[in-house]
């Protein structure tokens, strides 16, 4: 096991824990940004350079910053302790997560010996895009339609309170 693998894993775990357990939502958003950057590093480490670049550009660069941008519009300081829950809810939540993690870890542990590492000789961008523009061109075009629909939906949803004027 390489040193870089361990370093990336530790960083990802630390930032993910900070994302969930931070009291302030802004810190959560920046921790999520760093988590996504670390996952991009893991993609690079696994040999998929294109996905690593897209992860840093789109997920970390655009999505996480969009969260921070929306937080500027919303008054989140009204309730500073936003993770306070009753004890029974906390116990149920932690139990659910631990059981899921246990089941997943058991499945991984039982099958980890059968997993081999194949050398992806053609994992370059050319092979990826050959497949994207020949075999997967209908999903690709549908994805563009989905993005356009999302743009229209965002404009409509964010503007729909013209006929229902809220509290002034």
């Amino acid at each position, binding site marked *: 096991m390489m040193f870089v*693998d361990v370093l990336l*894993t530790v960083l990802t775990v630390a930032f*993910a824990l900070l*994302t*969930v357990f931070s009291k302030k*939502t802004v810190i959560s*958003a920046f921790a*999520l940004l760093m*988590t*996504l950057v670390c*996952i991009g590093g*893991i993609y690079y480490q*696994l040999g*998929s350079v*294109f*996905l690593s670049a*897209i*992860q840093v550009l789109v*997920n970390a660069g655009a*999505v996480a910053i*969009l*969260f921070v941008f*929306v*937080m500027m*519009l919303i008054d*989140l300081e*009204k*309730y500073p302790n*936003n*993770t306070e*829950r009753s004890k029974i*809810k906390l116990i149920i939540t*932690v139990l*659910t*997560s*631990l059981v*899921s993690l246990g089941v997943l870890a058991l499945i*991984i542990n039982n099958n*980890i010996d059968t*997993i081999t590492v*194949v050398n*992806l000789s*053609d*994992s370059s961008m050319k092979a990826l895009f050959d*497949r*994207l523009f020949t075999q*997967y061109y209908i999903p690709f075009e549908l*994805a563009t339609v989905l*993005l356009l*629909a*999302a*743009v229209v*939906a*965002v404009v409509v*949803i964010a503007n*729909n*309170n013209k006929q*229902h004027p*809220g*509290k002034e």
Partner: protein
Amino acid sequence: MSIYYYLSAFLFCLGLLGTIYKKDLISILLCLELMLGGVALLFVLFSRATGFLDAQLQVFFIMIISACEVAIGLSMIISLYRKKNTVYTDELKIISE
């Protein structure tokens, strides 16, 4: 290499914990992003393990869909904040009322 499999399971379960545990809608969306990140990491790992290049394209589509989800979710949160003046789930009990 095998440590990444456990990492993706951990990220998914941590995101699940946050999704149930958090109170404001923005944090819930943040934790959903964490879950999607864990699943996408598992797709890349399987692509590496089997030599099946299509799994990496699935990650590409997951990214597109998660970007759409975040944009629409955040615009819904803004619209909700304008009408109800809150983003906290304890105060948003429209259906149960």
